[in-house]
């Protein structure tokens, strides 16, 4: 907890009951749970601190745009206008959250996505650690008859994922700038990159267009620690790419309907976070599994 928050809590505790002025601010700010906050008397300090740190920058702009006295803060990531009071029916401006003392302007969705990615990172860490320990402890890693992993082809796949990361980040930039066509184009390119990666992985496992895959060449799941760790780590990553492609496709549909170019670009940022994470993990997997030689 930051110093400022502590100070705010101390201040609130000294004050005891909230003053009339504070209550008015609370309501006027239109914070989503302002009503709840009024019902739960006496006010809990944690709840109160949030209201004290509200920075009405975005709200003021909305107020001047809409020309109403009741500024409404739109909650949620989907830009629903349910709470939009007088004159807010066709509001398409940016959705601003109050500036949080700890997390700044990061949306709740973004914070949640980061924590999810951390937990996902632990899963990958667990698998990679297992791989490292098994490999470090084994006297023979490559058993005779087992193929070595092709570096060149996988380097191409790595480059493909990096490219799709670039198109993703450009898609986000397009969403921020409200350019719908560009957003759709870059999202489609990102999906294409993911789909090509999955095709590449299929080719690597099972072979495609006449070239034999690793399974055919003798790297069989269940036969050795080498085969097991390889298939588990890379297929777990492949699952993430597949999930990312599905997630991106959903966002693409929304983008084609113009849902994210009216200021509500947060979902594009979230899918971007996931997609870059998948790219980031592949960078590590590529190094640890493929590049480190016997």
């Amino acid at each position, binding site marked *: 907890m*930051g110093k400022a928050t502590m100070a705010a809590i101390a201040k609130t505790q000294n004050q005891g009951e909230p003053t009339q002025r504070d209550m008015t601010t609370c309501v006027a700010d239109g914070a989503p749970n302002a009503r709840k906050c009024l019902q739960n008397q006496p006010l809990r300090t944690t709840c109160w601190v949030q209201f004290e740190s509200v920075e009405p920058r975005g709200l003021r702009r909305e107020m001047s745009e809409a020309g109403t006295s009741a500024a409404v803060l739109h909650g949620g990531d989907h830009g629903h206008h349910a709470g939009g009071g007088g004159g807010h029916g066709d509001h398409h401006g940016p959705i601003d959250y109050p500036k949080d003392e*700890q*997390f*700044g*302007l*990061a949306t709740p969705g973004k*914070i949640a996505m*980061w*924590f999810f*990615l*951390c937990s996902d*990172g*632990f899963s990958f*860490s*667990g698998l*990679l*650690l297992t791989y*490292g*320990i098994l490999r*470090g*402890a084994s006297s023979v890693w490559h058993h005779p008859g087992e193929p070595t992993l092709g*570096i*060149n082809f996988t*380097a191409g796949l*790595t*480059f493909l994922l*990096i*490219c799709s*990361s*670039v198109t*993703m*980040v*450009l898609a*986000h*930039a397009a969403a*921020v*700038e409200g350019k719908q066509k560009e957003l759709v184009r870059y999202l489609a390119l990102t999906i294409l990159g993911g789909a090509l990666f999955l095709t590449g992985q299929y080719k690597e496992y099972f072979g495609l267009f006449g070239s034999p895959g690793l399974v055919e060449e003798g790297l069989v799941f269940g036969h050795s620690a080498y085969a097991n760790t390889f298939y588990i780590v890379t297929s777990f990553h492949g699952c993430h790419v597949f999930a990312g492609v599905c997630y991106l496709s959903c966002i693409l549909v929304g983008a084609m309907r113009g849902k994210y170019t009216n200021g509500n670009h947060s979902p594009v*940022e979230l899918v*971007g*976070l996931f997609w*870059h*994470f998948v*790219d*980031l993990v592949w*960078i*590590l997997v*590529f*190094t*640890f599994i493929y*590049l*480190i*030689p016997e």
Partner: protein
Amino acid sequence: MAGHANRKQYMQVFGVLTVLTLVEVGAVYLHLDKKTLVTVLVLLAVTKAAIVGLFYMHLKAETKVLKASVAIPMSLPALYAFILIAEGAWRRLPW
């Protein structure tokens, strides 16, 4: 927030990532001695991952708290891996 001027930076980061990937693959073909090669590869990989996190995931623009709440948990497995590898190396020393 992420704005108009960032496209140039995105492309620069893309260039850096591509070059680092080429360096990695090149390093494998150079047949360096194993310790050097592994050190180089791991450092390059961590650098690339950090670049993606900082610039593409915009972690650089986030608050200290969010940076720390990602960086601290994510550095623990790395630390654990380091300890395990060091332990393995120590066990293999010719006592």
